[in-house]
């Protein structure tokens, strides 16, 4: 078996395809590293400036608790991932911040309170450059590595049968499964060598630069990503062996494999997602606007009933109007957001039929980018919003002179607030959480590999020489 694997490997090392694959992978990974080195420091800098600006704007309002309570914590920014080069994960289509928008209406002394808003990414409005996918590891692995894996295996059985060497080999006392496993291992090694080389060059470029620093945690993630890439390669090698043993001629095998590849890798992920997202339709913008108006009208109505009454009652009613309206509006927006997220999640789970989509999801979750990461960010922001509100209420409670009426200037504490007591928003990334979302994908990928390997084995055992 090892002998066969070695023979396959030597065969491949001298071939044209090995040279071409090495050049292609090296070129791509080098490009990836150079581009990342240019972009990453700038994006980190941008994030840090934005966070500082937001914090300064927040601390400028410490003189009045009412201002803090009315305007909210300002913009909250998503922390850029250090492993952005592994998977870009559609980040340009996900907005990098949530806003606590505070100004919707003004009614005499009353102003609407802040609510969390989830703006759409606006890069689409200004981008006129041609539309192409970014060269990240996900692209190199998902597209290029899988194609190379197929090109290394399409003729491994059919080709030997055509040239007659398969007959010779089986005439020796080698069991068939050993031949198959040997071929598989040989191909795996010959694909892994150029890939590992390319990855090493890529990481070498990073380690020479001082601008990008990778933590221990990041190295661990990179290791997992490499293993996922190997698993994914195995999948396509198994597919290649399966088709190659079923088909009489290597040319037919290649055509079949290429068409399967195009369907699985290029088309299936997005076509399936778009079909699946057509099944449900979240709340439309118009419906949202109508319901927002209804909520405001309802509370305004209640407020107007006591408006002319005694001062304290009006104050109380105003407080109720402002706070309850804000809470209800926020619930509405969150409801819409949940519907949107559910639609995307459904679509994403259906794309898992394609192994490329599975690997894309895996790389995204280990690189800390993409949709799952965006949801994590939104959850972090929502948790912070609760903390911030609690802070405002607690500060107000701490002042005995206050009437404890949220939402109206006269009803709240007028003491200045200590700037350092305002909670700080921290956007965290946790590996264990990522692992949970990734576990299913990992299992699915392993399942694909096992099924295809078993299929290849069965096909090869029954093959006629």
């Amino acid at each position, binding site marked *: 078996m090892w002998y066969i694997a070695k023979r396959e490997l030597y065969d491949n090392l001298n071939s044209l*395809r090995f040279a071409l694959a090495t050049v292609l992978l090296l070129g791509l990974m080098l*490009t990836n590293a150079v581009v990342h080195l240019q972009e990453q420091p700038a994006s980190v800098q941008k994030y840090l400036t934005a966070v500082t600006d937001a914090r300064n704007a927040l601390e400028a309002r410490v003189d009045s608790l009412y201002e803090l309570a009315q305007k909210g914590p300002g913009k909250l920014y998503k922390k850029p991932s250090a492993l952005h080069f592994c998977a870009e994960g559609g980040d340009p289509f996900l907005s990098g911040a949530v806003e606590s928008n505070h100004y919707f209406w003004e009614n005499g002394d009353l102003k609407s309170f802040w609510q969390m808003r989830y703006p*759409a990414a606006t890069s*689409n409005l200004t*981008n006129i450059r041609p539309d192409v996918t970014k060269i990240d590891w996900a692209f190199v692995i998902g597209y290029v590595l899988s194609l190379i894996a197929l090109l290394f295996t399409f003729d491994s059985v059919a080709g030997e049968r055509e040239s007659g060497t398969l007959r010779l080999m089986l005439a020796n006392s080698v069991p068939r499964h050993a031949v198959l496993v040997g071929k598989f291992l040989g191909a795996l090694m010959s694909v892994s060598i150029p890939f590992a080389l390319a990855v090493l060059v890529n990481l070498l470029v990073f380690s020479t630069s001082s601008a990008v620093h990778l933590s221990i945690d990041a190295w661990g993630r990179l290791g997992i990503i490499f293993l996922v890439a190997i698993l994914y390669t195995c999948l396509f090698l198994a597919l290649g062996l399966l088709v190659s043993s079923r088909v009489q001629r290597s040319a037919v095998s290649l*055509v079949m494999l290429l068409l399967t590849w*195009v369907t699985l890798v290029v088309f299936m992920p997005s076509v399936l997602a*778009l079909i699946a997202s057509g099944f449900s339709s979240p709340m439309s913008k118009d419906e949202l606007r109508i319901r927002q108006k209804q909520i405001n009208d309802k509370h305004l109505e209640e407020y107007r009933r006591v408006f002319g009454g005694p001062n304290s009652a009006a104050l109380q009613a105003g407080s109720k109007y402002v706070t309850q309206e804000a809470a209800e509006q926020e619930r509405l927006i969150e409801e819409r957001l949940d519907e949107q997220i559910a639609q995307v999640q459904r679509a994403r789970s259906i794309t898992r039929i394609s192994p490329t989509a599975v690997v894309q999801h895996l790389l995204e979750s280990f690189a800390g980018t993409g949709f799952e990461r965006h949801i994590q960010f939104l959850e972090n922001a929502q948790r912070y919003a609760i903390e911030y509100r609690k802070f405002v209420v607690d500060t107000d409670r701490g002042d005995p002179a206050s009437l404890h009426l949220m939402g109206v200037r006269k009803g709240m504490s007028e003491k200045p607030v200590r700037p350092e007591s305002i909670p700080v928003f921290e956007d965290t990334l946790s590996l264990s959480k990522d692992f949970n979302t990734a576990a299913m994908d990992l299992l699915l990928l392993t399942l694909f590999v096992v099924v295809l390997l078993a299929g290849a084995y069965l096909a090869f055992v029954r093959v006629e020489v």
Partner: protein
Amino acid sequence: MLKTLIRRELLDNLMTFRFAAVLLITLLLVVANTVVLVQDYEQRLKSYNDAVKMHQQDLRNSKTYSTSFLFADRAPNPLSIFNVGLDKRLGNLIGIYHGFMPTLWDAQMHGTNNPFIAFFSSIDIVFVFEVILSLMGLIFAYDAIAGERERGTLRLVLAQPIGRGQILLAKYISAMVCLLVPLILSLLFALLLLTRSIPLSTADFLRIVGIVLTSFAYLSVFYLIGLLISVATRRTGTALMLAMFIWGFLILVYPNLIRATVNPGGDIQARVKTAHNQIQQILDAYKREHQKFLETEGIAGESSEFSKALGLYHQADVNPVTLMTYIENMSVISEIRPEFEKYVSVAKRYYNFVEPLVTRTTEKAWRIRKQALDEIYVKQATTDRVLLKLSPVGIYDAATQAWAGTDLSGLRDFFDAARRYRKIKIDYLHAKDAFASREWFVADKGPVDWRTLPTFTFQRSDVGTNAKRALPDLFLLLICNLVLFMAIVLIFIKSEV
């Protein structure tokens, strides 16, 4: 003799597994995508229609001239199903206001139900062709000569009294006929699905014919690349490997590589800064004239009783990042108390002076802004596109976008139309003497009269213009074809059998 050869090749190609497989896959992908794309188009059309209706409603209810918001809406392009291009980008909603000149970056987007859906890249019909047709061309070509040489049949054919050029021609013609079958069939299916729900005009059909012609030229380029490899190599195995790697490079790697490596060059910050300063000067001049008028009229400024009475709000500024110029002095007063009635004539004079000034200033600032933004962003995008054209995919994509009208020029037409409409609105206001009227700022007379103002319509450019934009790229594809064919003939004539 040529006929016999062609017949032989045709039969050879049609009866193969690869032909059946390619046909099936192309049909499947095109049909599945068309269904999705038609659905998407209908949704965009609906949000366009809703927006137009809402804007008309708002206009009918507007009480003063200064706060009447007119909008230019862009309907989705039905041919975006073939090549989406920039159709879903750059925004489709522009506010029409005399103090604002839109550039490519100032449009907004009609609401979508779920902005996250943009996350899934949409696949249009041209993309399917880009990937599948090129692969098909190479698969059909790689063994055309090398295979015959290996089997020895090439020697037999050449023993007949026919020229080598004729053999190549026969192979080319028959393969192209075979390859056209999936192309035409899938397009027919797509059109069937399309016309059921989207009405297409004759001009649209002509544009589609243009797209088909371009697809044909593109397909031919890849077939010839395959043939070139086949002529130049001795073994089919080598030919195949080379063909596949060239395909991977041209289709997958090169376009993405270009985008990744070519970065906005030059000092953007400095360019923005100079433009910002220039615009600031224009605004300062505006502010001086504004102030001078107030002084000659004896109105001290925004804190005067006059301003308080009429709610005068005034702001002129330029955003240092987007270079967007803001000049705002709109106002709406629901009713004027009798004691302030004396100010109305002053206010009329004020607006009559200041609004034309705003118009002129905006136009001056726009010229600088447009030039700066063009240099910063458009130049970059144009360089990208030129570099992309080194791969046939780039040429094909550009040509089909031009046919469909979803390229940059097509979208620019919309912005030009919006600017023309702004001019129409200003002329209308002048004709009505609206700047000097009470309805400019007071809302006590009911809705203002916009009835005779023509509504905004945007006609996509006619087929001739589309053709003019697409033809250079089509010619480029044809030249590629010619060069490749000549190279093949030269190599083949000199090669040993």
